[in-house]
């Protein structure tokens, strides 16, 4: 039998049909839906006069557009409200399970899926959102799709996709103090660029990866798309099984036992081939921060920025254009730079561990008075857990407040917008021009680095305060 990678095993076992000279028809086990990329897809079904093919495998929650305060009130923005209401109506019409606003399971779709056990090892998952790659942390083949494809999956529970190439990224060695999963992924993207993974599906492996918690693994896989890869995945292991066990939609009893036996086979065979293999030394990674306008433009927090002379023509133009937008001098340092906002949250870093990390860092200290800080839990369950664990109290004592769950300032579709020209340290995933509001300037970093900036009002090496 031919040697297979983890990705091959999951992908191949879901191929319903191979179109001659074309893409594979791949069966989708779980389809996650949110309010922004689904209305046109449901409208397409209505126009065809058909219903959602497998409503029990389809789960919806509003996240992109929701306010993060006063969620019990009507959404003020008329268009946002209309999208959220349209989602509710569509789910009712088609019998799709919805965790609506104020439902105890509502939240950012990629936080909700794993915490409810909807995300399972060895499964295929899609969502009309590029950060669907998050779920690869469980050894699932999970990737983002466009709205026409959302309609396709709603209509048929299958998707047409050419099989991507395979890349192995191995990170071995012990991580230094203050280095988190977010730093690992920002480090990798800074090395291979924002397009270095395009055309590939990535498997992450190595001791620095397997030593991560499930939540850390999710942060890592979440940002696979930021190097252009459709998805990234990690072989499931005991850490995975322990996380999934007992969750609402996870298999139970003998089904569980059977599932685990299968899941244990989901690893890359010795000698299986990848189209590309890259290895990094975990010991070389430090707390990271981005300085430019794509996630590949990142550096170690203590680095001096390039002055541009080392780049070839095109890259130099891109570099200088980005720094001009950011109003940063080439060749300057990141440390000590004044910031105006801090955002903790998103599908990248909006989970309970991120809030624990932030809270334990600021415990007994005081928020910088001039910095506006948005702490946005990834889900109602994360919010509830913050309260149960007393995290909210620690935060309040340090001068912070918890908001309510949603995508929030990651993409600023709701009112959480960073004003023009202002700087934000954000734990989210994109630092594109205007991503956090028109004219906003974003530095991507870990929750630890965000916490350090929230205390000092400037970019600060978190290790100095640990």
């Amino acid at each position, binding site marked *: 039998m031919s040697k297979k990678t983890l990705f091959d095993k999951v992908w191949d076992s879901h191929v*319903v*049909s191979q*179109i*001659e*000279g*074309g893409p594979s*028809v791949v*069966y989708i086990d779980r389809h996650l839906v949110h309010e*922004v*990329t689904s*209305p*046109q897809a449901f*409208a*397409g079904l209505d*126009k*065809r006069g*058909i219903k959602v093919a497998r409503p029990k495998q389809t789960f919806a929650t509003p996240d*992109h*557009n929701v306010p993060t305060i006063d969620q019990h009130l009507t959404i003020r923005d008329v*268009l946002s409200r*209309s*999208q959220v209401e*349209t989602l509710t109506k569509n789910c009712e019409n088609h019998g799709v399970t919805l965790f609506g606003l104020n439902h105890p399971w509502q939240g950012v779709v990629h936080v909700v899926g794993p915490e409810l056990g909807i995300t399972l090892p060895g499964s295929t998952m899609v969502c*009309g959102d*590029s950060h669907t790659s998050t779920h690869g942390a469980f050894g699932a083949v999970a990737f*983002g*799709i*466009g*709205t*026409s*494809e959302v*309609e*396709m999956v709603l*209509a*048929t*529970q299958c998707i*047409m*996709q*050419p099989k*991507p190439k395979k890349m192995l990224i191995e990170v071995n060695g012990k991580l230094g103090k203050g280095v988190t999963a977010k730093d690992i992924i920002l480090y990798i993207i800074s090395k291979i660029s*924002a*397009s270095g993974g*395009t*055309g590939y599906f990535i498997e992450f492996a190595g001791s620095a990866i397997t030593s991560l918690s499930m939540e850390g693994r999710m942060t890592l896989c979440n940002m696979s798309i930021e190097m*252009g890869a*459709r998805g990234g995945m990690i072989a499931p292991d005991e850490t995975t099984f322990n996380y999934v066990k007992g969750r609402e939609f996870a298999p139970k009893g003998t089904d569980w036992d059977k599932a685990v036996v299968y899941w244990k086979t989901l690893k890359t065979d010795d000698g299986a081939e990848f189209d590309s293999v890259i290895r990094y030394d975990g010991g070389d990674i430090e707390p990271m921060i981005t300085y430019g*306008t*794509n996630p590949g433009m990142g550096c170690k927090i203590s680095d001096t920025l390039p002055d541009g002379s080392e780049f070839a023509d*095109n890259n130099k*133009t*891109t570099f200088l254009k980005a720094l001009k937008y950011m109003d940063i001098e080439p060749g300057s340092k990141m440390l000590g730079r004044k910031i105006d906002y801090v955002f903790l949250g998103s599908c990248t870093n909006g989970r309970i561990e991120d809030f624990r990390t932030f809270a334990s860092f600021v415990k007994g200290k005081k928020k910088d008075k001039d910095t506006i800080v948005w702490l946005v839990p990834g889900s109602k369950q994360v919010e509830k857990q913050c309260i149960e664990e007393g995290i909210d109290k620690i935060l309040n004592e340090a001068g912070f407040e918890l908001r309510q769950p949603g995508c929030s300032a990651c*993409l*600023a*579709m709701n009112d959480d917008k960073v004003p*023009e020209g202002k700087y934000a340290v954000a734990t989210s995933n*994109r630092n*594109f021009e*205007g*991503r956090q509001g*028109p004219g906003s300037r974003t530095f991507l970093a870990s929750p630890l680095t965000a916490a350090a900036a929230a205390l000092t009002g400037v970019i600060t090496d978190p290790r100095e305060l640990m």
Partner: protein
Amino acid sequence: MAIDKFITLESPAIPLPIENVDTDQIIPARFLKATTRDGFGENLFRDWRYDKNNNKISNFVLNNSTYTGKILVGGRNFGSGSSREHAAWAIYDYGFKVVVSSFFADIFKNNSLNNGLLPVQVSEGFLSKIYSAIEANPATKLKIDLENQTITLLSSGESEKFDINPYKRTCLMNGYDDIDYLLNMKDKIEAFEKSKA
């Protein structure tokens, strides 16, 4: 639901020689609140086209009447970032039928093909030639021939082959819709489900 057929196109092109044009630039998130597919062209490249007072930014290429046409020529890694299909809708709604670049982000490429917007990937060398030709004469036309998978600079006759999945090419040339194709596979999909149960 058929998409518009695409066979050949001859048109001048609009140059946008910027790398990593991400979907947040193509259509910023605050314009994603519609529940229909219409009208996104109005906000295509919104924050590059208009300043904060909604005045046109004169040096942005779409505001420069020297450049016209149904072909947009972008820099490397075009369409990176979010999976929002609104980006492809906005480009198409604005009036483009083809986007040329030396490298496309995966999801953007799929979304474009699903909407009758043809992504044409060329070599870096050919991309430079296109930019130079447009710079010399903004009325320079490009010809895209989908059946033969060629892109030609009509001013010089220089041509390059481009890749496209044969299945997708057939869909575009005939205006076929993937979903109809899959709906016809219902029995096969059900058989697959039974085999896994």
